[in-house]
């Protein structure tokens, strides 16, 4: 099993859900495919989708909703 860190492409504010009432994009234990949207990063008044580069099982989510993130920061860990 290979562990992949999914990195934020942008600095900004990370959101785990598409809107405050909606369920999170992904949860621990969930199987995702490459291209699955795992969260949003808000910067310069735009919300940018973060997509998984590789598929697998989400084993850990490293940031909380509305955390400040940097470009290149690990957001979650996927096992494939």
């Amino acid at each position, binding site marked *: 099993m290979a562990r992949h860190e999914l*990195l934020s*492409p*942008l*600095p*900004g*504010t990370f959101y785990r859900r598409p809107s405050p009432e909606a369920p999170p994009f992904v949860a621990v234990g969930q199987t995702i495919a490459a291209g699955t949207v795992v969260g949003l990063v*808000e*910067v*310069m*008044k*735009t919300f*940018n989708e973060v997509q998984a580069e590789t598929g697998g099982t989400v084993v850990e989510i490293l940031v909380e909703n509305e955390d*400040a993130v*940097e*470009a*290149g920061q690990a957001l979650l860990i996927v096992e494939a």
Partner: protein
Amino acid sequence: MAIEVIKPGLATSVQDAGRSGYYHLGIPPSGALDQYSFRAANLLVGNDEGAAVLELTMLGPELAFRRDAVIAVTGAVMTPKLDGVAQACNTALAVKAGQVLSFDFLKGGARAYLAVAGGIDVPVVLGSRSTYGLGAFGGHQGRKLAAGDVLPIGAGTPVRAGRSLDPALQPVLEKAVELRVVPGLYDHRVTRASMEAFYADTWSVAPEADRIGYRYRGGRPLEFVARTQPFGAGSDPSNIVDACYPIGSIQVPAGLEPIVLHRDAVSGGGYMMVGTVISADLDRIGQMQPNHKARFVVVDLAAALAARAERRARLDRLRASLAL
């Protein structure tokens, strides 16, 4: 046809030295937010220092070159890659027709400048090739780049690749900066204790910060001096009778979150301004990412002019070091 946009990046736009002389008509200067790094990029590839470049914001584009070119990337640390192979920042690089230029994650600063020998040859509008997004003119079709756009490159004098920017002349990119401010013209609207708090507090760049204005949060709200609402001013204590907004002026709507106006600003309105960030520090604002920290530090006009002279001297050293 010279460069084709495969992926546009977050907010990639054509910018140059700016559009001077129309701010009184509501048309802001626009142009590269970090003018120093922008000029360095041009000088590295043998361009006139005011030639049009691409300003890359926090997430770089993916570009296919349709002809041989010499390029340089300065400013924010976003490692350029040619066909996936990492290249040096602050260096003139040779690109072959057919190669794809992409960028690694942002590792410092916020805006990188991509100069191409010959310059980005979009039409000149009111004396500048800079994009003014709010006005939807200048640059490439008045907007940031989109996938499928094709950018023409001007005829340049051939330059050799390989020249690098002296590390001593590279911009200093920090996560916490001090921004020098000349107070006024409306800080009399705020209590003295509250202005002292404003200058004592550390402010974080808000994710909304952009080319129009840099919004900060995290410091204490302003306390206003009581007044009778003047004829023509809005009812909020931060409102004034409409006035001109200098580039660099700090407005604080409702006394809550300071906004430093930058090169795409609107030219006037009804918010009081507590001070103006000096021109020598505007480049550093353009290199601030969300959540970077700033403190506002009071200086007098003599210190602001000295800082401007120092900045001009540094630009002269840059020009001398990269003279062909």
